[in-house]
């Protein structure tokens, strides 16, 4: 048993990495399908092992359910192999507990389904092998992120998923938009990486260690001010990675990546890393009320902000991107107020239904040869029944209609917001729920219903099995996934309790008023969407003229990109080009070429001194000797004169 506990995490981690290496080295020499098979099998293997590991861990006594595994085994644990900067030694430490396990299950499980889906979706791509190599690399890095036992390894994974995300957003490197989006994502993510780095420096300064065990064990001894700062810097990382305000602008652009990438990285897993980070660092936030409050407010603001923007977008994937942003806002809000179990629960259900929505949308896009504008869709329900029904399930789930998955997790969040005493945040959250239901059904109507097909390209209905099967599986999960938490039966909190070392408030209790208001809000949203988009509506055009300034604001996502353009890009570019034009040629260039000229002059002088004549060499030495001697004698007498001797 103990053997399995130590070997399994390492195997889980190495499987995707080995997959990447294999595809990279062997892939080009064999048939392209081999890469797909290897890519899928390695993730499936990791999933199976993760499930076995979870089963094992959850059958241990509750106080033994936080497993710290140090790699490599003792013989290779000599500090020689690891960063050893006395007194800090960083070994490869993993922490396997319920929080990590839930994330690992989703990463490998949903990851596997999306890999499977990619086999069909990417079939026409030129970079088929590269795609699987990158996807496996992503899974590896993401697993490293959640399995890490100290903040340094977390940062390695954190940076690694950023890299994988960059590579995959820019996967279609022929398109300028994709490359620009990839660059934007990378830059924004690096801002976050810097935040985590600063937090790590602070942690080292205050705790002298980066290991979770030691940092969290000593939290109560540290002062609140320091913890607040650590929390804020960690939050910067979380905000960048999870596309929260104000570093959210990269996520909609990231939709330039292939749809499976959007589903896996930019919906189900990577963007939720921020949630994971804050839940993981909960002892810090528990003792840093200001930082925790900031987290909650940012999450709530993002949830509401993204939902409003989502109401007017026409690109199917962009709407989903804003909804992702909004849903992650919920999770961040939940973990910010201390409802860790609720946040984690919403992460799980969200991974199911958001991946489902992306995959269903992917089928539509795939069958329309890459069309993403919903204005050129419509009436597709009959032509693509699978996509329609699965999308409908996803939409119902995200809108919070019982008994679909999203209902339970959202309800838990609403309930706990009130339990923790945040009525204002709750009000915004409910408003967001209304907007969510509205824009998701708007999207559903525009895409699949509302009259006839408006596009020009003839949709070809053939969707491959490899796309249909995972989509269907996720559809089922999006229905039943929420049943993990039913009244009187809370599987999530029970599992998570050892992690959070304290009783978590039971989820699943039905508070009639709260639940009623949430469902009512969702229904109102759906009704409005039906009124405006369910049929060709005059009200729509009328409303559009009335609210046109607001609509422009929302269409441009509150002009964040424009503001950033004028605030950062324009000044930077101006300064850079001015420097290039005026300062560099005369100033810097003049200076450096002057220095270079002077040094080469000196070089020439030195070279002319080495004439090759022995007498010159000997003379140099003797002069040097005389100088050394003279210097010494001066020193001796000087020292005697000032009485130092």
């Amino acid at each position, binding site marked *: 048993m103990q053997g399995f506990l130590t070997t399994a995490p390492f195997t889980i981690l190495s499987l995707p990495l080995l997959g990447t290496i294999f595809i990279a080295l062997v892939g080009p020499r064999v048939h392209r399908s081999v890469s797909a098979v290897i890519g899928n099998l390695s993730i499936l293997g990791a999933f199976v092992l993760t499930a076995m590991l979870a089963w094992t861990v959850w059958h241990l006594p509750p106080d033994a359910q936080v497993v710290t595994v140090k790699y490599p085994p003792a013989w290779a644990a*000599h*500090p*020689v*192999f*690891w960063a*050893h900067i006395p007194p800090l030694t960083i070994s490869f430490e993993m922490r396997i507990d319920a929080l990590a396990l839930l994330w690992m299950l989703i990463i490998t499980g949903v990851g596997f389904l999306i890999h499977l889906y990619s086999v069909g979706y990417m079939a026409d791509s030129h970079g088929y092998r590269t795609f699987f190599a990158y996807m496996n690399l992503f899974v590896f890095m993401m697993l490293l992120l959640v399995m890490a036992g100290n903040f340094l390894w977390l940062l390695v994974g954190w940076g690694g998923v950023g890299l994988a995300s960059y590579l995959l957003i820019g996967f279609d490197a022929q398109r300028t938009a994709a490359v620009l989006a990839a660059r934007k994502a990378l830059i924004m993510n690096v801002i976050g990486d810097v935040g985590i780095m600063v937090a790590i420096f602070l942690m080292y300064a205050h705790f002298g260690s980066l290991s979770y065990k030691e940092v969290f064990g000593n939290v109560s001894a540290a002062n609140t001010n320091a913890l607040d700062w650590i929390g804020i810097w960690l939050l910067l990382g979380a905000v960048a990675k999870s596309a929260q305000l104000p570093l959210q602008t990269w996520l909609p652009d990231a939709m330039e990546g292939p749809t499976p990438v959007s589903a896996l990285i930019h919906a189900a897993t990577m963007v939720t890393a921020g949630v994971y980070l804050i839940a993981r660092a909960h002892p810090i936030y528990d003792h840093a009320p200001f930082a925790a409050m900031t987290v909650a407010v940012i999450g709530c603001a993002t949830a509401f902000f993204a939902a409003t923007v989502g109401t007017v977008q026409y690109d199917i994937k962009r709407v989903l991107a804003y909804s992702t942003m909004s849903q992650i806002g919920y999770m961040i809000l939940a973990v910010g107020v201390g409802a860790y179990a609720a946040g984690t629960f919403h992460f799980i259900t969200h991974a199911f239904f958001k991946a489902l929505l992306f995959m269903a949308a992917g089928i539509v896009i795939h069958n329309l040869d890459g069309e993403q504008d919903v204005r050129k869709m419509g009436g597709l329900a009959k032509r693509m029944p699978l996509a329609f029904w699965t999308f409908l399930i996803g939409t119902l789930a995200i809108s919070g209609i019982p008994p679909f998955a999203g209902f339970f997790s959202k309800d838990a969040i609403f309930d706990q917001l009130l339990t923790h005493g945040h009525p204002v945040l709750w009000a915004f959250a409910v408003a967001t729920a209304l907007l969510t239901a509205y824009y998701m059904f708007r999207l559903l109507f525009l895409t699949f219903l509302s009259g006839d097909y408006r596009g020009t390209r003839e949709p070809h209905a053939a969707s491959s099995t490899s796309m249909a099967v995972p989509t269907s599986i996720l559809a089922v999960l999006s229905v039943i996934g929420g049943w993990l938490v039913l009244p009187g039966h809370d599987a999530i909190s029970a599992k998570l309790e050892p992690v959070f070392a304290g009783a978590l408030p039971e989820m699943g209790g039905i508070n009639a008023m709260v639940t009623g208001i949430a469902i009512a809000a969702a229904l109102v949203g759906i009704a409005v969407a039906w009124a405006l988009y369910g049929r060709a509506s005059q009200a729509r055009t009328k409303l559009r003229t009335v609210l046109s300034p607001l609509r422009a604001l929302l269409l441009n996502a509150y002009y964040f990109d424009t503001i950033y353009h004028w605030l950062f890009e324009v000044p930077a570019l101006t300064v850079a080009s001015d420097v290039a034009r005026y300062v560099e040629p005369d100033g810097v260039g003049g200076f450096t070429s002057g220095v*270079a000229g002077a*040094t*080469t002059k*000196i*070089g*020439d002088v*030195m*070279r002319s001194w*080495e004439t*090759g004549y*022995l007498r*010159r*060499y*000997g003379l*140099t*030495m*003797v*002069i*040097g*000797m005389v*100088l*050394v*001697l003279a*210097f*010494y*004698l001066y*020193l*001796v007498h000087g*020292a005697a004169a000032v009485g130092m*001797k």
Partner: protein
Amino acid sequence: MMSVAGVSISWAVLAPIVALSAGGLLIMLVDLVSRSASKTVLYSIGIVSCVASFLALVPLYGHTETTLAGAFASDRFSWAFDVLLLLTLAITLVLSSLRKAEDGGSPGSYAALLVFCTIGGMVMAGANNLIIIFLGIEQLSLSLYVLAGTGFPREASQEAALKYVLLGSLASGFLIFGSALLYGSAGGVGLAALHSAAVSGGTLFIAGFALFLVGLAFKLALAPFHTWVPDVYEGSPLAVTGYMAVAVKVAAFAVLARIAYEVFGQDSFALVPLWSVAILSMLVGNLGAIRQRNLKRLLGYSSIAQAGYMVVALAGVQQSGLNTLLFYLFAYALTSLGAFGVMALLGDGTDAYADLDAYKGLHFRRPWPAAAMALFFFSLAGIPATAGFYGKLLLLQQGFLAGPWGIALAVTLVAGTLVSFYVYGKVVWDMYSYVEGEAAAPSGNAFAPWVAVAAGAVGTIVFGILPQTFTALHL
């Protein structure tokens, strides 16, 4: 342990030198007896005696003992230096296998001289009194004077030997005169006696130490006693130049470190001239390298600068200084030998690739040697992820903790490094810039130099990325 006429002799301490001496004599005998002994056999004997000597060194690890009435020691000032000398000898012998009949000299005397030269170095490393130090220096130097001339069909080699021997004699003169004055001031030749003289620090001691330092600075190629370096490096046969660049520095630094720690033991104003010549060396070495068009000369100037850097390790005579010095010496040795290995590889043992023009566009003809050369140049310059970088980091740490002179040394080190980026960067740039047409120089592909290149590259990378592996050796 045996005792003769009241003097105890510890054979264990002397065993490494005895083993190597036996190897040297064997080479001569085999060369005498067998008319047809190939150079491979002779060089192999040399390498085997290296291994034997190393095996004799192993039990001395972490061991401190003096023998021959305190004249000779085995301790932290000798062990790692000895290992490095043996390593250098072995790699040089491997590189020397490219020597051809027309290079001049018999392989037997060549190999024996290399071995005897190394014995001189090991004697220096273990020497605990002035006479033994002088003995070691002379053994090392006399062998090297001849080795510099072993390419005698080339006039440059003869010139190198003559210049080296004449200037070297001058330096030896300073050294022996300084030793005499030191003896006069201390009343004994042992370093322990010198220690008490250093504490009182009379004029005679100061004058003696100054002259002694001049002699040693000549061996270390510290400016302004460096004038011989470019000509001798350029003229000597390739493998000898590589050996010279490393072994002499290792042995002379062993002496310098022993004197710094055993004679002074703390920062002393008597060491100020040492710091000044180090500063001058960093400047002269790096600035002088700028205009060189010959790689051997360039590496000669580089070795002047590197010697200056290494002195920084001793700044303030701090406890950690010896480890820093050793790390930097190992890094420098591996990097230098690797660079000479690449030169030998490409030129097939000749000086064909001593001209920097031959390196233009090298990457497009010989990507691996070009990559290796770039790695070695990066390490010499001190680019991160190479051993040279970490070494310089340690040096800076030593310098900044060592008071005003240490800070001056550290600042000069940084300035010199900046200049050296240009020097090395230019060569790397040339190697990776495409040039039309094939270069005139032929390029060889013998196996032997790959050994040196691989050893250098692995060491440079491992010590660069995992410097802890070195610290863990507790040398």
